[in-house]
């Protein structure tokens, strides 16, 4: 199993803010067949983005301030995004965090929200975004390879 072009395109449309394109491409994903690959590349992108933003300073203060700024986008994000979960997701990239009490859906949704906020903050050019996604794809492929022993034989 490896990340597909379609999975990367969906993530790119989501991060570049092309809502209609994102919806159109996302509809092409197969709920079962693409779930693992898409989830993996989104997770890899999140780790890459967190590392870029917080590698030098992943203090609690820096994380709290980032999450507050990201949630402050509008009233909906203030209410919908749980700051404690968001802070733990960022911290989890550097050290283990606990997600007890949170559903998989909440965790995945908050991670995607944070990814968009991190990419927005990074203000990537088209080229930078492609480089970022290529790096994320490579990382996701490595994870998938480790996850599927038959792939490496």
């Amino acid at each position, binding site marked *: 199993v490896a990340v597909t072009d379609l999975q990367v395109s969906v993530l790119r449309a989501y991060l570049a803010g092309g809502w209609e394109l994102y919806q159109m491409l996302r509809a092409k994903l197969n709920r079962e067949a693409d779930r693992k690959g898409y989830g993996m590349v989104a997770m890899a992108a999140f780790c890459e983005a967190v590392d870029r933003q917080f590698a030098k300073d992943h203090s*609690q203060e820096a994380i*709290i*301030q980032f999450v*507050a700024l990201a949630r*402050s986008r509008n009233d909906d994000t203030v209410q919908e995004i749980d700051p404690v979960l968001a802070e733990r997701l960022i911290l989890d990239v550097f050290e283990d965090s606990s997600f007890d009490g949170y559903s998989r859906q909440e965790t995945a949704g908050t991670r995607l929200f944070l990814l968009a906020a991190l990419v927005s903050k990074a203000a990537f050019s088209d080229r930078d975004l492609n480089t970022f996604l290529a790096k994320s794809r490579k990382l996701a492929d490595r994870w998938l390879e480790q996850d599927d022993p038959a792939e490496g034989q």
Partner: protein
Amino acid sequence: MTVSDTQVATLRAFLAGGESGHNAQRALLDRQAADSLAYGALLAAAFSEAVNRRFATQTTSWRVVKYVADVRSRSTRTANAVNPRKAERLILEALGEGTTADIDGKTSSWLKLALLTALMEEASLDSAQLDEFIARVTKMADHLLG
């Protein structure tokens, strides 16, 4: 029922920032009896007044989010102890938005004390201003107690 001088002195010691003074004064209160109710009303009034002074001209949820983040950023202990969502909701409720009926009384009181400490530090009132603040919240608490 009205607020007593001991209760007011306890609040003053707390707002003036002297931990030991506050603890000494608080020891004079009877937690099981009327002091508990009246002092609770006094703290609630002080919290409401401090919040409204701080956010009077800028009641937007993102300012509240930013404020709570700033308070939590002050120390690891505060960051871990203050639940941001609950703290934000308590502030918004004091500003007339939403309700916090689902937050238990102990958590609510603790968070209000933590936020009130931060609000008063920021306000840095001089002695006369503190007297005026306390007189106002005492009147509010008396009104609450009926």
